């Protein structure tokens, strides 16, 4: 049940982000809800599940809308894993927690992505991207993460989400 719910959240999020959110771009930038969800799940459930969820949602995105398979999967997986390391040491009831980690997650996602792009010989001006893309995306993401965190936190407290599958 847990697996199914998470999978459904990922798929629905993918649909919404690739279709509806596209029409509501502000300043040409749109919030990355996939990243927010990956970050939130790794805050709540730790590095193992964070990495898995990141990998799956990344590979879905790569297959359908990426120019190379694996770039997003790699970035999301590493973000999910590294944020999941802090799982044991943070207050999960605090509303600042998701915002803080979303900011960290967004920056590290873009840094990782930049490294991948650099290795695949795409030339980007990072300062330019940071000013025009990353800063605005951080603001959007951190605002959205408050609401998404509240919602996912509620979902994870339902009894059927606690039942172990294995």
């Amino acid at each position, binding site marked *: 049940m847990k697996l199914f719910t998470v999978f459904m959240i990922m798929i629905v999020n*993918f*649909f*919404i*982000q*690739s*279709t*509806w*959110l*596209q*029409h*509501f*771009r502000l300043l*040409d*930038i*749109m919030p*990355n809800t*996939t990243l927010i969800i990956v970050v939130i799940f790794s805050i709540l459930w730790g*590095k*193992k599940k964070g*990495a898995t969820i990141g*990998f799956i949602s990344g590979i*879905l*995105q790569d*297959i*359908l*809308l*990426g*120019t*190379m*398979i*694996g*770039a*997003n*999967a*790699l970035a999301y*997986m*590493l973000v999910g*894993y590294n944020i999941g390391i802090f799982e044991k040491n943070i207050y999960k009831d605090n509303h600042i927690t998701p915002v803080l980690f979303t900011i960290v997650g967004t920056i590290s996602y873009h840094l990782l*992505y930049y490294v*991948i*792009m650099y*290795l*695949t010989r*795409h*030339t*980007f*001006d990072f300062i*330019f*991207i940071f000013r*025009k*893309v990353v800063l605005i*995306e951080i603001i959007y993401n951190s605002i959205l993460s408050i609401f998404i965190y509240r919602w996912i936190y509620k979902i994870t407290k339902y009894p059927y989400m606690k039942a172990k599958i294995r």
Partner: protein
Amino acid sequence: MGNWIKRGTIMIVTLVTIILIIIIGITLGGRQRVSTPENMIGKIITPVQKILYSTGKVIGDGVGSLFSFREISKENKVLKKEVEKLNQKVIQLSLTKDELDELKSLQKALNYAKENEKYNYISASVTGKDLGNWFNVFTIDVGLNQGVAKDSTVMNGEGLIGRVFEVGDNWSKVVTIVDNKSSVSFQVLRNSQYIGVVRGSVHGELTGYLIDPQAEVLVGDKLITSGLSMYEKGIPIGQIKKVVKKENELLKTILVEPEVNLRKIDKVFIIMPQ
């Protein structure tokens, strides 16, 4: 035991990272055909996306028009002026068209070798767009079954949009001209001697340069594809917004505004390979 499991996670993550890097390397340039599992996923997801995308467009346009009606009324005035201008042009052109028809019949009479300029188009609708802010990729609802091949030119009524990057059975990915990966060879509409290359950048702009350093281009010049790159000839690309000539550089750099508003595309044409 616990320690071993802890290390196991790191090992798995490292292993997957290495595998992913290899896959990135393999799939870097876009493939002729996507693999079967990808194709399956695309087949399932694209139809749903198509419906959602079109409903989203209706909602987005509705909300957008609420906020931008002042702009629209301004645009209306500009467009009315343009219609007047164009009407005059139509009259002029219809005269030249008669002349051209005469010349063409003459061409036929003289058994002139014809250029095959008739393309086959098929139309497609956009199903979804790239999630990130780095690239400019979208998917369309036609693919191999409809005869689309990799690197076919994608355009709409206004101008060039991009090219097909990867093809599935009934879906394909399109890379737009403002994407980082793309470069288009153009010629200036006013003077077809002036050719050059435009490239995309992250922020939806086209920058390019002219091969002839002596070429005199002006702001407002229209660019069309020259047919030297993989795009078909004669499709409008955009207008020159800025011309930069640096002292220590030989080539003239230009900033181009694309003809098509790439954020608001819905229906596209694909030029079929002959």
